[in-house]
């Protein structure tokens, strides 16, 4: 198996690495250029949206593995492995969050507003402290879960590299047998699920909902984490498809596995749409001005109304109609395109949520080339992180790992 190592990690091919690096540099350059230019708020808006989007994909991606482990699923082994590779983006996401602090004046419109008693919750030091702690806990639990998952999956005869050596010596001290390891994975997995719900709700309230500080919706937190799982599954399907379609890589999935993960994606497409609709209908029917202004601005007023329809079509109607078909779900080429469309739809959905608050009286959608380039930069960043992880642990690219045998 070890001899396969060099063959399996085609990511070592410089070309892919260089492309991702180039994307990262372009995105970073555009962001810096945007900050220097006349509209730093636009650069920060794109930064915030991308931070939320890509962090959600990583957090939701790991959630797949955690949920599969917790419910003792037996079909998802290789997919769970891939899902764990998204953990590599956690530290980056954490740093990206810290950088957000420098843009606080551009992304928190409430900073200079009279909040009528809400200052206790909505103030910059408290907001950053609680979100800092929240993300630290969430990512910490993710890493502890991964630490145990690796014990079950790594081939210990491969001993090169500092990180692997550290892991081995850590395991010698802390983990005795497979059953105990699995039990701990269950415990930390459940804690991760709890943290996922709570921390993503918090992030949703603090970084998205509070843009309109006087508007609130109790479902917003749950909506945020359901959305994260939805696009996390999308990201996972894309990654699995790319690896599956690459003839040089040993990683292969059965059509039934693509079908199953496709069904899960379909299910969460429905849940996302349900949560979207459930908020909408309650506010629409109640017709209280404090609540409806938010909806009217986003769904009835140009330029946002057309964006709202576009988002709903490409994140729900399109995938719903397409995924009713069974065969489509087993086609990795097609599924990866569909998932990419949905992820871009959710990017636009973030714009729909935060855009009106940051761009008052906008006549046209605040969307341009810079947004696209910053998006690509983040894409490069998460790709590099995942590639680094899969290079470090090439066992994850095998069809089966030790645990499944």
């Amino acid at each position, binding site marked *: 198996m070890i001899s396969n190592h060099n063959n399996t990690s085609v990511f070592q091919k410089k070309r892919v690495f260089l492309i991702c690096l180039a994307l990262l540099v372009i995105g970073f350059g555009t962001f810096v250029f945007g900050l220097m230019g006349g509209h730093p708020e636009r650069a920060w808006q794109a930064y915030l949206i991308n931070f939320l989007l890509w962090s959600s994909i990583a957090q939701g991606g790991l959630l797949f593995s955690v949920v599969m482990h917790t419910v003792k699923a*037996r079909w998802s082994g290789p997919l769970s492995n891939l899902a764990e590779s998204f953990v590599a983006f956690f530290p980056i996401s954490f740093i990206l969050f810290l950088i957000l602090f420098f843009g606080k004046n551009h992304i928190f419109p409430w900073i200079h507003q009279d909040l009528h008693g809400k200052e206790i919750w909505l103030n910059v030091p408290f907001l950053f402290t609680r979100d800092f702690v929240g993300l630290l806990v969430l990512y910490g639990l993710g890493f502890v879960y991964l630490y145990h998952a690796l014990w079950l999956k790594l081939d210990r005869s491969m001993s090169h590299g500092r990180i692997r050596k550290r892991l081995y010596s850590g395991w010698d001290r802390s983990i005795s047998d497979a059953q105990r390891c699995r039990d701990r994975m269950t415990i930390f997995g459940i804690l991760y699920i709890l943290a996922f719900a709570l921390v993503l*709700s918090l992030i949703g309230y603090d970084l998205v909902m509070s843009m309109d500080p006087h508007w*609130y919706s109790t479902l917003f937190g749950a909506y945020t984490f359901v959305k994260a799982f939805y696009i996390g599954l999308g990201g996972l399907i894309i990654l699995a498809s790319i690896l599956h379609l690459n003839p040089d890589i040993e990683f292969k999935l059965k059509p039934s596995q693509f079908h199953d993960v496709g069904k899960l994606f379909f299910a969460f497409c429905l849940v996302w749409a*349900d949560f979207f609709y459930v908020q909408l*209908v309650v506010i629409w029917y*109640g017709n209280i001005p404090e609540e409806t202004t938010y909806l009217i601005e986003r769904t009835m007023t140009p330029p946002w109304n057309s964006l709202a329809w576009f988002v709903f079509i490409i994140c729900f109607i399109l995938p719903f109609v397409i995924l009713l078909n069974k065969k489509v779900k087993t086609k990795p080429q097609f599924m990866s395109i569909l998932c990419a469309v949905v992820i871009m739809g959710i990017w636009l959905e973030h714009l729909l949520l935060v855009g009106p608050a940051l761009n008052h009286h906008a006549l046209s959608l605040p969307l341009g080339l810079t947004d696209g380039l910053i998006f690509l930069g983040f894409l490069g960043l998460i790709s590099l992180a995942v590639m680094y992880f899969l290079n470090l642990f090439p066992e994850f690219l095998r069809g089966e790992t030790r645990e499944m045998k």
Partner: protein
Amino acid sequence: MNDLTFAKIDQTVLDTLQPPDRSYWVTVGILFIGVLTGAACWIYQILTGIGVAGMNNPVAWGTYLINFVFWVGIAHSGTLISAILHLLRAGWRNPIARAAETMTVFAVCIAGLFPFIHLGRVWLVFYMLPVPNQRNLWQNFQSPLMFDVVAISTYLTVSSLFWFTGMLPDLAVIRDRATGLRKKIFTVISLGWTGAHEQWRHYARGYLFFAALATPLVISVHSVVSWDFALGVVPGWHTTIFAPYFVAGAIHSGLAMVLTLMIPLRKIFHYEKIITTGVLENVAKTIIFTGLIVGFAYATEFFMAWYSQNPLEMAIFKYRPTGDYAVGFWIMVVCNTIIPLLLFFKHIRTSILWLFGISILINIGMWYERFVIIISSVSRDFIPHAWGLYSPTIIEFGIMLGAFCLFFFFFLLFVKHLPSVSMTEMKEILEQGEDHVG
């Protein structure tokens, strides 16, 4: 599970259909007296007027609506078990799917009774139906109460058909071994099932389609029920989280009811090898999950009331844990969110006694949840001048007793006359292993 065979499964299930002994009929009789008590109370209410119940201004919705929501909730876990877990290929649900689905059908029937009971002039109920008429009346389709009529009747239809379809092969098994009148009856209701390959193919496809259609249906039904409240503008009712929170709460209560029914059932009918402790343990684990969702929803409502700094919202969420109905509120919190956490401990969720006790407490807690939501919000409406308290009268308690008795009465009749465990699905597990079903 290992020493089960096809013949043993058939035998165990068919044994439950042997003529019952006297204690069974005594229990059925006692329950029937309970049902009569409820019916008598209702007749008294019809003859005297709705004023015999405790409803007043401002609390116009009392235990009748609480029981309505409670029973719709109970119904939900049946569909979760029979449809959603079928789609997820969770084979452990097979031994309890039939009983849970039956529970759904009966619970929806009971739930459907309460709006009738709540009507002062029940004979005018046909006003709810969109029939052409000379009175120039037309239903207000914008009213959530009309949504309810549509949702509940659709749910009853689909879950009954799903239940009956699933039972067809088992009915044929009984038909083949029965004699006399029984054989005639089962010949008719098994619809000519022969077990031909073509029939099995249609059966499997049909079952799958039912499961796929019942899943969004069950979510929509309790969402609609939640909108009876959430679409109004009353503080404590008008909140966007209500639909998913009600769905999760419904499944929470329903799973508890599944345990309450299954534990005695497996004891009395010697189902221990079929409904194993492992199955009950998995139900318990699912209860932890739904309990956490419900707890998350409670906490979110309080947080959001505070975050909004809206005085009306803050007032109602201060009133609930400290006001006139504080006892109900704390019963709800403790029974629904704290006690289910005990199931995290393996020795508790594998102990039949603990499971039974916890399941009953959750049932009580979920009843109180509806009490707290429905009563507290309207009793402290916007204008202090119009505040008022509510307490149920003896007539309402009588009707509630009747409803519970009717439910268990139906269930007892069911377990002795129809197969309470699906022989077909048990054989599927035996044939393919738990993780390959579906």
